[in-house]
């Protein structure tokens, strides 16, 4: 049984941030005053705010009729786990925690709805990553045809997964606008964002890695406990983590037990990486711990276990078809760029002087481009006006990724049109019957491919028109430098604008309809697996625990790159968020369920001086699952950077005997770890 989430929760409040009442007023001030006068009379019940407490027998229940806080449970094994753990050279144990994080797009959520008095039409502007998904839900909720509900996601100020769920406010505001026949607007305050907008991560892992004396991995056993918060919005995240637990390595045996547990906290859902950073954090920490127990350099340990280069899909023991990869190349590249051996030498010298320097490496793989299954296609229209101006409509819903630029580039390439003549439109359900949206590093691999295919279709028709105009065979027409030539014949050429004019006017082939546009829905045959290797160098002040992130190097492989500037931007932003998980950010609750990090002075989003200069590099391993060969870059750097930095922190403290620090590695935690080691 999956408990559904009531829109307004007058009976039982399950987390600080549950909605209990809605006030609609003429002005913001009136609404605030009226909301202040709503008296919520609550009896206090005991709360469970962490998974360990929530799964104890007799724990207070988040959903009483459900009878337990454990919402989902599964055990899966692959390979001979018993044999792998039967007298291996060594078994490394660890309890690893992925703390709860908040998305904090700098633009909060907001919804504006307007119902027309004259037509049965409802227009909803929402700061969302999934306008079509919101439209579908609204239409179903209000029993309206989808064509009468228009959802517009205008320029959205960041999402990171926090705007990937349908929220009660979207339904309530739309409902009120229809009922009142007045526009109704709601904009989230920052404290509401911290409380009520979905959080991310929140997983606890008890892991065991069995290894041979030479470092080869024999098997991995994981007990994964996922915090769901109060409602099951992210119930798929634990299983998603499971799918990627092998990371970049050959793992011959795997057992994963999952429990997803309700707590009296904000629901957990997607946050940049969503389930995949948790997996890579686990395997990358375990690999470092195992190397240390074997007295082996962590890089050497990785070299012995990485999957070798592959250009066509390989299947992991957990059944994932990795599309293509060259993990050793990415690792060697980052080591070379960092002068790894030199770094280790300098580390030895520094340690001899009592300084605490740490070097952390992480090899990561990501799973992206959802999806080959279900309804996760992406749509695109390429439409040419009679004057040759091109409109591209995309089902992706960018909020800073730069699809306007990248999709225009893809179309310009196929049609020989100046990008200034291409307009990319997105985030408006009136323009496309269906679309999926932007999340999970899927936009280029799925949405970009749909745009590419539509542009190809237009090119095909334009080629026939050009051939007709130039009295040549379509196969002999080539597009170059903005004009359409007959191959090998100088001077016989037409421009795209001439072709567009003919497409709608005189001079078409007799059997051809007017018009020049194409619609495509692309559903990929498989997922894409971006990958890379990151390296961090930290120094810790032995007197205070204060940490400096001295250097950060990344090598990321997202297949073919459409636009290097945009790809770099995604890496930079991803690094900032992954490093923030390692060092700064954590959502915390008090024992009674009160949120302790309800604003930006308690929840530490990194500021300009907090981050180092990043040094980026890439390898290029095209994906075989889409014609562009692209993979996805939105989440990669987030996934690689958290373990790289935490590995560096633990490495810095290794001489003191410190084995584990849970992120965020704050100066206070580092200080306490140093104290504990000194008193040992």
């Amino acid at each position, binding site marked *: 049984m999956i408990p559904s989430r009531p829109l307004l929760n007058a009976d039982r409040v399950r987390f600080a941030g549950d909605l209990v009442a809605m006030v609609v007023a*003429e002005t913001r*001030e*009136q609404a605030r005053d009226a909301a202040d006068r709503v008296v919520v009379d609550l009896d206090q019940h005991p709360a469970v705010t962490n998974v360990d407490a929530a799964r104890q027998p007799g724990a207070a229940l988040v959903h009483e009729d459900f009878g337990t806080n454990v919402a989902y449970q599964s055990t899966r094994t692959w390979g001979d786990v018993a044999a792998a753990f039967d007298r291996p050279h060594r078994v490394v144990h660890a309890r690893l925690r992925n703390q709860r994080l908040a998305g*904090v*797009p*700098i*633009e*909060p959520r907001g919804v504006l709805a307007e119902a027309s008095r004259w037509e049965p039409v409802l227009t909803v502007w929402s700061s969302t990553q999934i306008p079509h998904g919101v439209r579908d839900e609204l239409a179903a909720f209000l029993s309206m045809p989808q064509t009468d509900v228009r959802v517009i996601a205008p*320029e*959205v*100020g*960041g999402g*990171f997964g926090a705007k990937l769920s349908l929220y009660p406010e979207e339904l309530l505001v739309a409902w009120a606008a229809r009922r009142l026949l007045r526009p109704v607007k709601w*904009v989230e*305050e*920052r404290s509401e964002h911290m409380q009520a907008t979905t959080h991310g991560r929140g997983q606890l892992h008890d892991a065991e890695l069995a290894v041979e004396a030479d470092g080869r991995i024999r098997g991995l056993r994981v007990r994964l406990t996922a915090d769901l918060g109060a409602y099951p919005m992210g119930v798929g995240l634990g299983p998603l983590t499971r799918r990627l637990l092998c990371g970049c390595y050959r793992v011959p045996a795997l057992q994963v037990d999952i429990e997803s547990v309700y707590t009296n906290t904000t629901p957990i859902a997607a946050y940049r990486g969503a389930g995949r950073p948790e997996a890579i954090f686990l395997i990358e920490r375990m690999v470092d711990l195992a190397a240390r127990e074997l007295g082996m350099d962590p890089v050497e340990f990785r070299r012995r276990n990485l999957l070798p280069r592959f250009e066509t899909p390989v299947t992991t023991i957990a059944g994932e078809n990795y599309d293509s990869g060259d993990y050793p190349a990415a690792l060697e590249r980052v080591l070379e760029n960092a002068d790894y051996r030199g770094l280790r030498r300098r580390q030895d010298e520094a340690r001899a002087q009592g300084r605490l320097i740490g070097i952390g490496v992480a090899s990561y793989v990501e799973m992206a481009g959802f999806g080959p299954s279900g309804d996760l296609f992406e749509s695109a229209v390429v439409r040419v006006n009679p004057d040759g101006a091109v409109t591209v409509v995309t089902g992706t819903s960018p*909020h*800073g*990724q*730069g699809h306007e630029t990248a999709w225009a580039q893809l179309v310009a390439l196929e049609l020989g049109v100046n990008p200034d003549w291409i307009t990319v439109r997105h985030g408006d359900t009136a323009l496309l019957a269906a679309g999926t949206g932007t999340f999970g590093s899927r936009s280029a691999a799925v949405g970009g491919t749909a745009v590419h295919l539509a542009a190809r279709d237009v090119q095909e028709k334009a080629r026939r028109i050009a051939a007709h105009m130039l009295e040549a065979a379509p196969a002999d027409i080539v597009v170059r430098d903005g004009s359409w030539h007959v191959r090998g014949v100088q001077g016989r050429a037409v421009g795209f604008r001439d072709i567009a004019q003919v497409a709608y006017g005189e001079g078409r082939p007799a059997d051809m309809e007017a018009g020049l546009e194409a619609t495509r829905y692309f559903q990929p045959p498989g997922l894409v697996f971006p990958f890379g290797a990151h390296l961090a160098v930290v120094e810790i002040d032995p007197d205070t625990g204060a940490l400096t992130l001295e250097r950060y190097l990344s090598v990321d492989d997202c297949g073919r790159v459409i636009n290097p*500037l*945009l790809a*770099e*931007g995604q890496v*930079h*932003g*991803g*690094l*900032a*968020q992954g490093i923030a998980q390692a060092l700064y950010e954590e959502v915390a609750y008090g024992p009674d369920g009160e949120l302790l990090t309800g*604003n*930006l*002075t308690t929840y530490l*989003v990194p*500021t*300009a*001086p907090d*981050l180092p*200069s*990043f040094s980026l590099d890439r390898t290029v391993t095209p994906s075989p699952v889409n014609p562009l060969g692209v993979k996805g870059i939105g989440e990669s750097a987030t996934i690689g950077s958290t373990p790289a930095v935490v590995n560096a922190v633990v490495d810095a403290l290794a001489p003191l005997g410190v084995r584990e620090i849970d992120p965020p590695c704050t100066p206070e935690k580092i200080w306490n770890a140093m104290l504990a080691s000194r008193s040992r």
Partner: protein
Amino acid sequence: MPVTDKVPVHLLVNGEAYEVMVPPYKTLLEVLREDLGLTGTKHGCELGECSMCGVLVDGKPYLSCLAMPLDLQQAEISTVEGLANGNEPHPLQRAFAELGAAQCGYCTPAMLLTAKSLLDSNPRPSREAIRQALAGVLCRCTGYLKIFEAVELAAARSSTSPPAAHV
């Protein structure tokens, strides 16, 4: 509807004089956005924690979410709408666009204005000076690096002196 006493407020924004009738408790952020229609200035917290609402008051960065218009009637207020010279983008705007220093763009107005204030007083700032000057303005998208580079590019283009080693 309760009667709210509105008062006349005189503001000088981007060199233009405005007179508006507003309730005295409205913040400068609200008046800019709602009464003057200057929606380039953003709200991110309205608590002084994020600087999305940053404008310049007499050339200095100022949080409009904490400012009361009645206090600023003698001041010169600049918002992002006043940055370009007609159709000609400000050098900072041009550099931000060229280098990809804006992703979602929500922090960009405040970043641009804060950077402008820095360059007005320190035409060739060091990287460290840029980091410190922008310290309060949050950006969740870019990791800040391209923003620093864009400020440096704009500075380099508008000045002939080399960047300061330390300022």
